């Protein structure tokens, strides 16, 4: 350090994105870094909520095409593991691992949103003037794919960067903050976009969607500016061949903990998300709640999630074992779904709202606990943090996508069977379909608990020297 030329030092300080500051992550920088989550949340709301509705209602696109388009980002989620691995083994003379991926991820997310409205307009009925028929579908597919890929790249690299910079003590709080920002991004942009699109026109659609594209770039560049520490690689390091993904994956999966954690994340996320699009119709159709009070449901869910994030951060930074925390989250989930199921026979709206809040609470606890566990995975051998976080993200995003699709399908199938009297008179009730989904979720929670069990034992009987020593006494702290 001391032998650096003053000019060199000046450049290092002035150069964009690079920051030679200390290891610690000051709050201001952390808040700035978390802006990438706001932009990813914004894109998620656009893809899954706003554009979904706009395509079906305003542009009258066939439902199956809409379903395929929305599935594209979900289907590409497993690439996260590969992206994380690429970022871990990135060869850079400057010493960047995450910044290039954040930059190009932002660019793809921006690009997808930038071409999205035009593609959707062409996709709509009778809006195409010239050219072959398939252009609308191809353009929309490209837009959804680019946006999804960009979100996956941005989030994987961003989480890995946050994990690189956080210390052992601050990690749970960093994770919780990143989750809060994701929720904030979704909530705020849902309100703003909904308000802007209240008088729908094609011009307005183009303005709003491209506006979010520009916001993506603004937020992400603010987030990544000067965040990654520059650790230049020597010539030998740069020229060393990159390890193969298969070898890195073998190192990652060795020890048995990583694979199990992924199974837990997959099953648990399915369990906490299957009711996602079913809670509001359940409230309206079965409990006879009004539209405004079903909107309150989302508020209850979000409030529960925020409390969950807060409590998870507090307990985990006090040394609570993240795997046990995930276990507690599942217990709260069991309570939550029991409450939701019993709300129908008891016709109790109160019980239903409590259930919705508890689903949010349990889901929040579970998400922070498992993400903290993924970040804490020792980066050993060829497997780095990017791979671990990419794999976590892949399991989480895929499970959430599948869960929503399965939930809706199961409700429809069971309801059409039960209403036609196929399952007997006792079950000929529109509540049956919903109830089956909630019971499946409870079953999945027990499955997750079974998968989770050995992980908590690993931590207690087989602590890694040094790491667990300071924490073992507090791991049994009552919650």
């Amino acid at each position, binding site marked *: 350090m001391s032998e650096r030329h003053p000019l060199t030092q000046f450049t290092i300080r002035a150069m964009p994105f690079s920051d030679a500051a200390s290891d610690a992550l000051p709050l201001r920088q952390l808040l700035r870094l978390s802006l990438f989550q706001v932009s990813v949340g914004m894109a998620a709301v656009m893809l899954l909520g706003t554009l979904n509705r706009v395509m079906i209602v305003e542009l009258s696109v066939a439902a199956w095409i809409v379903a395929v388009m929305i599935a594209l980002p979900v289907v590409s989620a497993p690439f996260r593991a590969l992206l994380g691995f690429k970022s871990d083994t990135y060869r850079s003379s400057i010493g960047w691992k995450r910044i290039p991926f954040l930059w*190009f991820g932002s660019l793809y997310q921006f690009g997808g949103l930038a*071409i999205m409205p*035009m593609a959707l307009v062409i996709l709509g009925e009778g809006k195409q003037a010239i050219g072959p028929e398939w252009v609308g579908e191809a353009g929309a597919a490209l837009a959804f794919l680019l946006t999804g890929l960009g979100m996956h790249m941005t989030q994987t690299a961003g989480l890995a960067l946050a994990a690189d910079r956080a210390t052992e003590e601050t990690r749970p709080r960093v994770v919780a903050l990143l989750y809060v920002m994701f929720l904030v991004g979704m909530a705020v942009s849902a309100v703003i976009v909904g308000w802007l699109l209240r008088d729908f026109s094609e011009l307005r659609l183009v303005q709003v969607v491209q506006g979010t594209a520009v916001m993506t770039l603004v937020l992400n560049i603010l987030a990544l500016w000067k965040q990654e520490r520059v650790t230049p690689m020597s010539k030998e390091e740069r020229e060393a061949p990159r390890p193969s993904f298969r070898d890195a994956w073998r190192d990652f999966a060795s020890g048995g903990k990583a694979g199990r954690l992924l199974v837990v994340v997959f099953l648990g996320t399915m369990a906490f998300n299957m009711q996602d699009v079913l809670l509001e119709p359940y409230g309206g159709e079965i409990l006879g709640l009004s539209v405004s009070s079903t909107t309150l449901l989302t508020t209850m869910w979000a409030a529960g999630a925020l409390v969950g994030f807060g409590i998870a951060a507090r307990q985990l930074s006090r040394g609570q074992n993240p795997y046990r925390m995930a276990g507690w989250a599942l217990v709260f989930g069991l309570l939550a779904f029991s409450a939701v199921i019993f709300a129908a026979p008891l016709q109790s709206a109160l019980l239903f709202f409590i259930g919705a809040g508890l689903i949010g609470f349990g889901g929040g606890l579970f998400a922070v606990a498992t993400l903290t566990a993924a970040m804490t995975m020792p980066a050993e051998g060829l497997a780095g943090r990017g791979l671990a976080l990419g794999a976590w993200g892949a399991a989480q995003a895929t499970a959430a996508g599948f869960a929503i699709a399965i939930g809706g399908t199961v409700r429809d199938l069971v309801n059409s069977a039960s209403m036609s009297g196929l399952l007997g008179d006792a079950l000929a009730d529109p509540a049956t379909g919903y109830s089956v989904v909630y019971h499946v979720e409870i079953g999945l929670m027990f499955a997750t608990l079974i998968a989770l069990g050995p992980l908590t034992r690993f931590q207690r009987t087989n602590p890694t020297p040094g790491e667990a020593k300071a924490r073992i006494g507090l791991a049994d702290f009552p919650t």
Partner: protein
Amino acid sequence: MSDDPDKASPTGLSLKEAEEVHSYLIDGTRVFGLLALIAHVLVALSTPWLG
């Protein structure tokens, strides 16, 4: 700093480092240009402005 012998002062960046920063700029511009092209084609198909 890196052990590169071919230093390209006065920026303090080595040749390799400067090239890397440059490559992000160039690739970014390429991606951006391609996206602009696609967007223009899509707009032209819905409202042809040439003939």
